[in-house]
């Protein structure tokens, strides 16, 4: 194992020395290496589920993968002695407990996820159950569960840990910052970018010309393009990262999609003009007794339905993609008995290959839809209605309703 790690690291340096790889890949490698000194590779025999083979285990494994994790596990295996070994990076755990801030490395949980390993820190006891960290009540030495497998003597703590998703956000954020600031720098010396910038420029133009400009309008689009570009590339690159064996599931975390949706909500609420609020609170051109009813509907639409449609769509699509892809990969184990090793493996390969192609499309599509709808909502908030036609606003919103209907 250690030789493998050494080989891997030597391989990385070899790549860098040979300068075969392009700049961006080098950066990715450097970013990974940056995390290595703070990490301690965990090679302990563990108490988790062991090898995954049965249907039940596959299901549990997928559910486990969909959740955020406190360490960056690349792969696990069982060695000849029957020990379970994990290869990956431990990440810092940062908790806000009843007695203040507590930090330790996630390796202290020893890959346990069932509340069996108790970590004592500053006189408090912590355990991890289904990717959530619980603080044990005073005096308790082990977690007791009720019939629904809920902990009875432990409570959840606010968990600001650098989890795998946070690492993903940081990595992708740095990558984006690196790529696009380099592109920005290129324009100082030349009119047309070269190298990787030549790939990025059309994408930037695409978001600006196909998403921001038509949906928000020529007059206001510039103010919001920065946000839309950031969100588009953030979601897209993270979706793609989720398809790599690194196994990120950042855009499949409700907390992350909620954060993005709330950003959009805040932006279009803050930039809404008088017309926008008029159309929500006191819809012109309808009988007076309908106005309050419409106001309630519009308020619910603006503050609950719109952000929820954004956050749930992204979350559900990416989660579903991960579930289906992992299930197809799991065909290798689950159908081994009926199809034989070769049959099950090749079936799994073929199916997951085609699903991966679809998921590549979905990765882009979801980034596009999220950005597009954000732009649309912002566009509705800043649109300047022509008061000659009182029903103009209805037309716009009914169009929006149609579009939304297509996407939901």
């Amino acid at each position, binding site marked *: 194992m250690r030789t493998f790690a050494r080989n891997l690291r030597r391989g990385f340096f070899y790549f860098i020395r040979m300068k075969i790889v392009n700049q961006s890949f080098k950066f990715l490698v450097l970013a990974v290496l940056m995390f290595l000194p703070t990490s301690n590779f965990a090679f302990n025999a563990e108490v988790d589920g062991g090898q995954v083979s049965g249907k039940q285990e596959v299901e549990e494994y997928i559910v486990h993968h969909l*959740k*955020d994790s406190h360490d960056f596990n690349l792969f696990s295996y069982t060695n000849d002695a029957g020990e379970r070994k994990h290869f990956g990076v431990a990440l810092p755990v940062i908790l*806000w407990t009843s007695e203040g801030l507590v930090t330790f490395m996630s390796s202290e949980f020893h890959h346990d996820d069932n509340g069996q390993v108790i970590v004592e820190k500053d006189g408090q006891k912590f355990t991890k159950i289904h990717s*959530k960290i619980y603080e044990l009540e005073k005096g308790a030495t082990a977690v007791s569960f009720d019939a629904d497998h809920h902990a009875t003597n432990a409570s959840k703590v*606010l*968990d*600001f*840990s*650098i*989890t795998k*998703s*946070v690492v993903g*956000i*940081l990595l992708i*954020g740095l990558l*984006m*910052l690196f790529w*696009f*600031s380099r*592109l*920005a*720098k290129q*324009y*100082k010396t030349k*009119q047309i970018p070269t190298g990787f910038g030549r790939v990025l*420029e059309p994408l*930037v*133009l695409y978001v*600006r010309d196909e998403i921001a400009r038509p949906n928000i309008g020529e007059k206001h689009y*510039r103010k919001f*393009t*920065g*946000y839309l*570009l*950031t969100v588009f590339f*953030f979601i897209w690159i993270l979706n793609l990262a989720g398809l790599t064996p690194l196994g990120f599931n950042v855009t499949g*975390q*409700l*907390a*992350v999609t*909620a*954060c*993005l949706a*709330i*950003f959009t909500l805040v932006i279009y609420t803050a930039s809404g003009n008088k017309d926008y609020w008029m159309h929500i609170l006191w819809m012109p051109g309808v009988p007076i007794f309908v106005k309050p009813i419409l106001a309630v509907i519009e308020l619910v639409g603006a503050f609950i339905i719109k952000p929820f449609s954004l956050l749930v769509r992204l979350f559900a699509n990416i989660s579903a993609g991960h579930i289906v892809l992992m299930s197809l990969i799991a065909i290798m184990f689950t159908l081994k008995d009926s199809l034989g090793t070769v049959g099950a493996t090749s079936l799994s390969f073929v199916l997951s290959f085609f699903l991966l192609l679809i998921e590549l499309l979905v990765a882009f599509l979801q980034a596009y839809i999220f950005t597009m709808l954000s732009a649309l909502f912002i566009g509705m908030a800043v649109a300047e209605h022509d008061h000659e036609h009182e029903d103009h606003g209805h037309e716009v919103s009914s169009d929006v309703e149609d579009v939304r209907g297509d996407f939901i």
Partner: protein
Amino acid sequence: METLLNDFSPGLFVVSTILMLALIALMVKFAWKPILSSLNEREEGIQGALDAAEKAKREMANLQADNQRLLQEARLERETMLKEARELKTKMIADAEEEAKMQANKMIAQAQEAIVSEKKAAMAELKSHVAGLSLDIAEKVVRNELSNKDKQLELVESMLGEATLN
């Protein structure tokens, strides 16, 4: 729904919000603003260049039209000049002919006058010559007649006879 709410991690929400805010701020400052303004500048540059090219094209067309017009004018001028020259030539020839004819007529008239006057002179000379000749002849004849007396009488008689007849 309960599992969903259970899966929602407030800590991750806070951390991702902070990171996203930082990312958006950094991206806007270091990437999007310079990129978008450079792209805008470039697009405006391209638009300007296109407009300039269009203008140059139009000017070129104008220039060409001017040239064409000048050429046309020059051609017309040449034609009129040629025409005038041709007319001048015919006129000059006609004039010359006229003059020549007049000169010839004048010369003919002079010649005729000269001929007439020569003729008159010749006639006068001839007359005087003939008169002298006749006088000589008459003198000889008379001298011959008067030498014979009978003949003189005869003559007187014939002359008298003539005189009575008159």
